[in-house]
């Protein structure tokens, strides 16, 4: 009898959390920005996923709460730093971001469309690449280091003014080739653990990986303030961390591989709200 009870407890411990689907909580930031955290999967995911969920839905109530108020959200500290940088003249041309773009609010919606094809450059560009093109080509300034503080803070400013708007990256036309490359990377098993992005984030989201509740790995919430390292994290750094954890040689932030992967993963988030800077564990 005693043995049966123990077994039941052991089983409950194993299966209990493993069946935890995304929760049913609604995300409203500052009591006014209503976020779409659950949407019909974009057409290109037919056969893979029916519904896409924001990573917010997989977090504990305590972690979720930190994102629901800009004052509580330490990621907004980066936004404030970038607000100062926005109007700061940098480089040889006497220009700031504001010289061309006015107020940050005028950039609402921009981040939702990145990465995107840049005809002049003849390549798919991430928001970081576009920012650096502004800096080097128009401002005569040094480019920001990829995924480092200045770039991440500025990205967070640009996503913050787009919050609540749906992710909508284009995957057709000239971007298609890069998108296909990203898709192939997404389904390629890397490292000694032989894990692809899909093995965790498509096949097993909602399950527990050790003590962590696996999300779909959506990137609509980036840059993300992680409780783990208490700073804003960029998409490429996160990809790099994931690939490293498969015990593989990783790609560098800003590399063609991670740019392609960002386009593909962003397209999986199409329909979910821009949340950056979000808060995750």
């Amino acid at each position, binding site marked *: 009898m005693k*043995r049966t009870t*123990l*077994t039941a*407890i*052991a*089983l409950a411990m194993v299966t209990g959390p493993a069946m935890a689907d995304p929760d049913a909580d609604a995300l409203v930031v500052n009591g006014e920005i209503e976020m779409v955290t659950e949407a019909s999967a974009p057409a290109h995911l037919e056969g893979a996923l029916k519904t896409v969920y924001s990573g917010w839905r997989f*977090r*504990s*109530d*305590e*972690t979720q*709460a*930190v994102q629901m108020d800009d004052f509580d959200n330490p990621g907004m500290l980066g936004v404030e730093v970038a607000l100062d940088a926005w109007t700061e003249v940098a480089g040889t041309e006497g220009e700031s971001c504001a010289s061309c773009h006015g107020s940050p609010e005028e950039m609402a919606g921009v981040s939702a469309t990145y990465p995107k094809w840049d005809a002049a450059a003849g390549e798919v560009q991430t928001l970081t690449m576009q920012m650096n093109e502004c800096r080097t080509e128009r401002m005569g300034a040094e480019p920001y280091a990829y995924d480092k503080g200045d770039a991440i803070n500025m990205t967070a400013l640009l996503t913050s003014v787009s919050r609540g708007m749906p992710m909508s990256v284009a995957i057709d036309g000239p971007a298609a080739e890069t998108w296909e490359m990203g898709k192939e990377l997404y389904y390629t098993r890397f490292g000694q653990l032989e894990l692809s992005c899909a093995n*965790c984030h498509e096949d097993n989201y909602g399950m527990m*990986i*050790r*003590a*962590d509740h*696996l999300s779909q790995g959506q990137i609509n919430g980036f840059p993300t303030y*992680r*409780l*783990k*390292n*208490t700073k804003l994290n960029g998409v490429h750094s996160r990809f790099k*961390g*994931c690939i*490293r*954890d*498969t015990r593989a040689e990783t790609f560098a932030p800003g590399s063609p591989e991670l740019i392609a992967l960002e386009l593909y993963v962003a397209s999986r988030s199409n329909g979910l709200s821009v949340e950056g800077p979000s808060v995750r*564990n």
Partner: protein
Amino acid sequence: MQLTRRDALALGGAALSLAALPMRALAATDMVGEAITAFTGGADVGERGITLTAPEIAENGNTVPIEVDAPGAAAIMVLAAGNPNPDVGTFNFGPLAASQFASTRIRLAGTQDVIAIAKMADGSFVRASQEVKVTIGGCGG
């Protein structure tokens, strides 16, 4: 008596957690006791009139939200019994505090008890404690 593999795992797990907890507790016990004595001067500590709110499970030990509330307290000390240094902080409430409530975010080095001790206006002491399970990450930890 036949033990299945599952039974063995369950028993082993139970034994492990029994063995691990006192050891972890022992390491910091003296420092926790010293901190409490320093705060209370060795006075008796009751259990009513103080509320400590902390998550049962913290998603990351680096940033754990906690709240303390002890109506009528002059000060509330918070300890993390399993940290290398158990001191977390002390809230001293002034005359313009509307309540003896405060909320903050703390670091927990692992699963452990968080302890709050309030010094009441009359010089008596009360305590509350709660275990917070600190989880490790998925792959990277």
